[in-house]
């Protein structure tokens, strides 16, 4: 038997190669092994709601032996938005980060696709609505997982007594708790008449026309109800069309019945309007009602959340989903996916919805009839129609169907609200449209 002699030089080379191979080899780690995971969640405004998320994460972490750190980041003062932009620039930060409406598309190139997670959840809990797909998917890839926490519909919240008294509308009969809506007569014309009656009665509808989210969402739903596209799905500027002219005329009539300072309203103005008892209707998720329940119970007892009026092209309500995203630079992607799958299970979602008092909305269709919405009160059933359980209205987002990156510009620049205000303030229709056309062309940058 011949024995090959290993020289010193060969020994050193072999050792160096083995060490290099060990260092550079991919570190394969299953989700069920130990590891670290850092999470940036949206800081919920409902007291105790964060606790439900923390408990769910800790349970999962204990089972999977993963060391987790959770930061709850508030959206006030754009803290979460700034964190997202900073992490995107630095390519470093949390593994999982909560992202609002437009941000998954804005950072699409930097996000880990999560088709495996979302498709599994859809199979289990039903499909998502078109808006969730529009905002969360690009080129067939799911950019992020639709989150229950923070997602909301900004539908009308009416005062039962004031609507009956001034507009002769029984919102509870129109949207009965536990039953399908009987709202065929709830049209944009009926809405306009009710707005006029309530304004004459000294309790105008509290709809903002500022540049913040609430104002933009409301105007967007009305634009869609009139079929008024400003940029089509292919990215063509199509603002000069009759549907846009029609909705501008509608808004001009509506604005005459709104508070005169509506162009200066921000997202807190409508809440204050309802809670102070000065108005008969606002467009908001149940946060205003929840504040009223605490600060003005006599107002809260008269609040009823319901659907949007139907326009010539349908009934649309603004839906603002939140997402949980995984950065491409995340250190523990497998664990992140495993956690997001856990947080999207029906029992986890029910726990989070309950903790938020019904504010949070799951994106999946089988989960829109949880008992929280039926039972919350007073008055009992006030939130029954909040999650759109009978698919009575199309859940939409302002500026759609423009390509999301263009729509984000239309949304953040509040182009639609500005068009309404300019036209209302006396600018000729064609001049308003020409101004909008110029603005929209500027949003086509890539």
């Amino acid at each position, binding site marked *: 038997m011949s024995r090959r002699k290993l020289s010193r030089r060969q020994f050193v080379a072999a050792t160096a190669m083995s060490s290099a191979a060990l260092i550079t080899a991919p570190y394969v780690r299953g989700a069920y092994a130990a590891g670290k995971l850092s999470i940036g969640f949206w800081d919920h405004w409902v007291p105790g709601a964060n606790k439900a998320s923390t408990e769910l994460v800790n349970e999962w972490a204990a089972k999977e032996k993963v060391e987790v750190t959770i930061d709850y980041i508030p959206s006030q003062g754009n803290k979460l*938005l700034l964190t997202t932009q900073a992490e995107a620039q630095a390519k470093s930060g949390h593994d999982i980060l909560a992202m609002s409406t437009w941000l998954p598309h804005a*950072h699409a190139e930097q996000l880990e696709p999560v088709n495996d997670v979302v498709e599994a959840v859809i199979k289990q809990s039903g499909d998502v609505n078109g808006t969730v797909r529009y905002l969360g998917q690009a080129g067939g890839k799911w950019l992020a997982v639709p989150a229950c926490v923070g997602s909301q519909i900004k539908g009308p919240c009416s005062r039962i007594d004031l609507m009956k008294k001034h507009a002769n509308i029984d919102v509870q009969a129109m949207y009965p708790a536990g039953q399908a809506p009987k709202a065929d007569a709830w049209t944009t014309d009926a809405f306009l008449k009710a707005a006029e009656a309530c304004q004459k009665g000294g309790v105008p509808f509290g709809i903002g026309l500022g540049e913040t989210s609430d104002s933009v969402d409301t105007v967007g739903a009305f634009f869609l109800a009139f079929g008024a596209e400003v940029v089509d799905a292919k990215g063509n500027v199509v603002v000069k069309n009759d549907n846009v002219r029609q909705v501008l005329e509608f808004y001009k009539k509506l604005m005459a019945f709104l*508070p*005169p300072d*509506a*162009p200066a309203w921000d997202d807190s*103005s409508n809440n204050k309007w309802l809670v102070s008892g000065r108005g008969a209707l606002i467009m908001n998720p149940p946060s205003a009602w929840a504040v009223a329940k605490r600060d003005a119970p006599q107002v809260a007892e008269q609040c009823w959340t319901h659907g949007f009026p139907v326009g010539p092209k349908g009934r649309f309500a603004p839906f603002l989903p939140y997402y949980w995203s995984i950065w491409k630079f995340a250190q523990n992607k497998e664990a992140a996916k495993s956690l997001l799958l856990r947080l999207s299970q029906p029992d986890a979602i029910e726990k989070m919805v309950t903790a938020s008092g019904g504010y949070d909305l799951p994106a999946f269709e089988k989960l829109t009839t949880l008992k929280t919405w039926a039972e919350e009160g007073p008055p009992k059933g006030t939130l029954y129609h909040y999650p759109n359980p009978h698919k009575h209205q199309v859940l939409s987002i302002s500026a759609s169907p423009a390509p999301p*990156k263009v729509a984000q510009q239309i949304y*953040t620049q509040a182009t639609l609200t500005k068009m309404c205000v300019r036209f209302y303030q006396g600018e000729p229709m064609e001049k308003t449209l020409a101004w909008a056309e110029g603005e929209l062309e*500027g949003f086509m940058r890539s």
Partner: protein
Amino acid sequence: MVDVAFPPNRVAGAGGTRKRSSLRTALKRKSTTAFLMTLPLILLIVILVIYPAFFSLHLATLNKSMQRFVGLGNFEFLFKRDTFWLVVKQSCIFALTAVFFKALIGFIVAHFVHNIPAKGQRKWRGMLLVPWVIPPAMSTLAWLWLFDPSYSAFNYTLSFFGVGPIPWTGDAAWARFSVILVNIWVGAPFFMIMYLAALKSVPDQLYEAAAIDGANWWQRIWYVTLPMMRNIIAITTLFSLIVTFANFDIVRILTAGGPLDHTHIFATWAFRVGIEGSDVPLGASVSLFMLPILAIAAIFILRDINKRGNEA
């Protein structure tokens, strides 16, 4: 290899001594000590100012998705936008008007305070500095409540006199007035304290000489006070112009640029476009556009100071 060419200890020892002595000499120099003492601040400025400034320049040359170099393409794009020119116009109106009134009010109040007997002057100085000392983000919130569209305390008060309601933040002209007013309120005390310091350094003999020459109140201001305060006025104006041009918090909190973009200034529009609209390169370009405007202002103001310095 030269390690055995000559006795190492001798050469190394000589070199080391020379190095040590030159180091000691360098450390003894006042300029070196001054440099070392300012080094932490220089490092801070490099990390927090110089690096972000160059990074911002780099960002401004990228396309929206930050994957392609576009040179001056972002500026070309901005120059074609009406909203950009509206922002330029508003920033100039905002900064020039606010700085003018801050300087005027500061000058007048400084004279009042200067004429208060020394005993009670400290209290007045302290009280008048309060608006400048409170963080603007906090004080502007109080102003926001005073201007609130629906529950304005001002409108409530004015209603007793049959005036209003005034759309403080809802009408373009009133909104501009409101943001400028708050900026003046916050910034005037700074001018006041600078001018007060300048006033105190004017020798009394000059006023006495002027009085002997029969100068009246206005002539004393025009021919004695103002010339003696010129450099302070110039430096304070330049400093305030820079800070006011770059203002963000007051406008952001009070109007967020509305209504209809009529109160946007460079910083708030850059934030809207760059951070909220996820177009960071365009936002960087908007904020960088302040640089040439302020550079021109600085050249004019500082050149004037040098001229007077040489005359002196």
